[in-house]
């Protein structure tokens, strides 16, 4: 029984940063991520349970961490060493060590998981993603399971979780579908702001495709086109299948938005644009493009995790554009996510699984998923 562990090792972290810059995902082989034997984590309180992960996905935020590109903002929100993996489908272990209920993990470590009473205002309102006590209580800092030294993470054969973090899975939902629940819940949370007006989704990686799926699965009030930018052929095909009206490259985007919104142009800036731009990339380039194609008074929603970006914000000021973050989800979004997954048969987005021991290959695959015609890569612990 083993687990992957990410430790605080500055020299290896620096090495990962260099390697990751040369080849995305290469930080896995030279950085502070290593495979170790599982060790029994103490339960913070008696009501916590032990989980045996079945599948655990590799997320963009994991890759940023492994390649050393994650923002320093997270430093106080993470406790080392930790086992990554927050997209988890797992069995709850019974007292005798046998497998019990099959669950999806809600990884956010909010007030209730941290034993904080009374709950913060956000948690009291069910908005666990906005928890105001995310680094406090009886747990070490960690905004989610998979970033906290006390809870362990999905890239292992055992981790622990608070009962409030568990969502029971319907028997007919496969593990392959269930491992997509967590990212789909993020997408459902993003899609809740969809208004039916013309919408642009930047990026057709996992988040972009799931956000598109979340919008098209539940909204019959589409008044304007949904335009998706995609770089690779398979991404384009999937975006079309999931209901995009237009799929184009990012180079082509301004022209598509201009013509579909009957916009004029002043320099490179559209005079109209899309009311809603969902940035699922989070790079300087994607955010620049978001500001280029968003309508005056419109909203740019950051679903992809940005880091340090450099932006010219004059147009934001002049056109009264809002930039809004979009992090995680509520419990309700997990149930919505199951509906979305069923509606679009999203298990097909799980492109490949790897054993934990093949973690360098798995991470290299995930880091070049688009180019290799893949979407979601996951670890598969069911064989052991």
């Amino acid at each position, binding site marked *: 029984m083993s687990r992957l562990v990410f430790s605080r090792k500055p020299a290896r972290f620096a090495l990962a940063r260099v390697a990751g810059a040369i080849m995305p995902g290469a930080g896995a082989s030279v950085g502070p991520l290593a495979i170790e034997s599982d060790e029994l984590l103490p339960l913070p309180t008696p009501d916590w349970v032990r989980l045996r992960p079945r599948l655990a996905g590799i997320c963009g935020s994991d890759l940023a961490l492994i390649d050393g590109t994650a923002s320093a903002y997270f430093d106080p929100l993470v406790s080392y060493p930790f086992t990554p993996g927050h997209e988890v489908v797992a069995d709850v272990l019974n007292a005798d060590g046998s497998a019990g209920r099959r669950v999806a993990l809600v990884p956010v470590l909010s007030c209730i998981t941290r034993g904080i009473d009374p709950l913060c205002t956000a948690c009291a309102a069910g908005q666990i993603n906005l928890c105001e006590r995310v680094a406090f209580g009886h747990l070490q800092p960690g905004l989610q399971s998979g970033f906290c030294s006390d809870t362990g993470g999905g890239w292992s054969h055992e981790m622990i979780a608070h009962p409030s973090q568990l969502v029971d899975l319907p028997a007919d939902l496969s593990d392959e579908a269930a491992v997509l629940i967590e990212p789909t819940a993020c997408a459902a949370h993003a899609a809740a702001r969809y208004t039916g007006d013309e919408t642009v989704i930047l990026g057709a990686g996992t988040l972009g495709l799931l956000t598109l799926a979340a919008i098209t699965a539940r909204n019959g009030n589409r008044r304007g086109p949904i335009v998706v930018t995609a770089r690779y052929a398979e991404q384009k095909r999937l975006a079309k299948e999931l209901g995009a009206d237009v799929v184009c490259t990012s180079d*082509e985007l301004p022209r598509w938005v201009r*013509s579909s919104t009957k916009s004029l142009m002043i320099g490179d800036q559209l005079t109209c644009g899309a009311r809603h731009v969902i940035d699922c990339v989070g790079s300087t380039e994607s955010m620049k493009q978001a500001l280029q194609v968003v309508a005056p008074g419109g909203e740019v929603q950051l679903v992809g995790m940005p880091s340090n970006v450099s932006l010219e914000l004059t147009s934001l000021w002049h056109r009264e554009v809002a930039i809004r973050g979009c992090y995680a989800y509520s419990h309700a979004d997990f149930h919505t996510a199951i509906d979305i997954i069923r509606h679009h048969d999203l298990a097909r987005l799980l492109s490949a699984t790897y054993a934990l021991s093949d973690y360098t290959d798995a991470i290299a695959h995930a880091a070049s998923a688009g180019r290799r015609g893949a979407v979601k890569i996951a670890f598969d612990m069911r064989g052991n």
Partner: protein
Amino acid sequence: MPRPGFVLEVDRSTPSILFWRGENFSLEKLPAGRSRVIYPPEPLEALSDIDGAIRNALLNPIDQDPLATQMFPGMKLTIAFDDVSLPLPKMRRPDVRQRVIEAVLDTAAQAGVDDVHIIAALGLHRRMHEYEMRHALGDRVYDAFHGRGMLYQHDAEDHDNLSVIGTTDHGEVLEINKRAADSDLVVYVNINSVAMDGGWKSITTGLASYRCLSFHHNPETLENTKSLMGHRHQSALHTSVWRLGQVLKDHGPKIFQIETTLNTDMFPSPFEFINKREWEWTAKDRATFLGTTKSLNRTPIKLARKIFHGIEGPHQMTSVQAGETEAVHKITLEHVHRQQLMEVQGQTDILTLGIPFVSPYNPDGVMNPVLVMCMGLGYLFNMYRNKPLVREGGVVIMTHPCYRDFNPVHHPSYIDFFEQVLSDTTNPAEMSRKWEKQYAEDEWYRHLYRTGNAYHGVHPFYAWYWGAHGLKHAGKVIIVGGDPPTVRRLGFTPASTMDDAFEIASDVVGRSPTITHLHVPALLIADVQ
């Protein structure tokens, strides 16, 4: 004495044949025993006294009174002229338009006419840049008229300055430039580069509105235009245009049509080898060819473009006739045929075409992929009378780099057309139904057409429709040397070499097809028997 056109049967001793490839050339070996090369007639002698011929045409018009007697003080005179989409390449100064318009203005001045407007008959073409207007009209005319607002470019979207003349019995509405419609006399100054130009087409397209043009510039009409350069009855486009011409004749202003024809002496030194037959190349021609192609291989594309668009053709006037439109045009066509018409026996399985750097829609601009299609299937494919050079279901092979490159100033809607429309459909009727209206009504395209130097929003559709008959007629279209994704977006098949193209074509026309190469650049009309 210039030699007539010539059809060379390719045998083992035939040298490699020159093909245009955009801003460069290649020499291609055609299979012996089943290939032929059509060389156009050599350039006719130019008129010895061009200005004298122009004066004579104005003094002795056909089926009309002399121009001077039609002019009187206080009259409203409008002179309209063809834009710089022709001739190609642009002609050495003085341009024919300048010579003719100066003569007309002299006549008007002598008659005491001072209300004179000069209008560039653009249709939906882009507005010309100042240097292009100066080139076409000369500095004297430009300086005298432009500053006073009496020289300007037609605007097919200026609804305050368009006027409906009438409607044909087929429901086609003739709507033209209001100034022309309200004039006592419209003098139209034409250059008839190819047989489809001139006649009633001059005013009913050059000074028409989008609405008027859409009656004949559409997929149905152009698919049924079985011979764009040949007999009028084979051209649905010209049949429609002639109906509109009848409305113009019956209800419009008085027209004084001046038509000119040019010889095909198109390229000056050091590009003379282009006009020659390969087996007659001298050592100097070979050296020039080698030097040119090798240099162009190393020249950045923008610079190569600049070099080619800087060429001024020596072409000279071979005729000028004036007077009543139809009578004038009949004689014009005789002169065009004298220069360009040649008999060719039978159709071929494969037609090969070298696509040059320029078409009528990219003077001083980029030959974008849509224009490659238009030039190949819209223009060169149509250089025939009676029946196409290639048999129905045959293969058209073009050579061009077919780069995904556009001039954003001249062709903004072409970029969107390539990205949006062609990724959806290459079928002319389907794109017309699904997309044309959106492009026609796009405020941004309208703005750029009216105030900038952009082709009208629907122009890429028209360029595509121009090839509609060729597209329907050909069983397969292959582009040699083109950027593969771009070629595929056009709906065509890419090939890296001519041999590869013949191999690919064998799926359609078998292993031993007949091949015909149309030796461009010189213009010709193959009278296919």
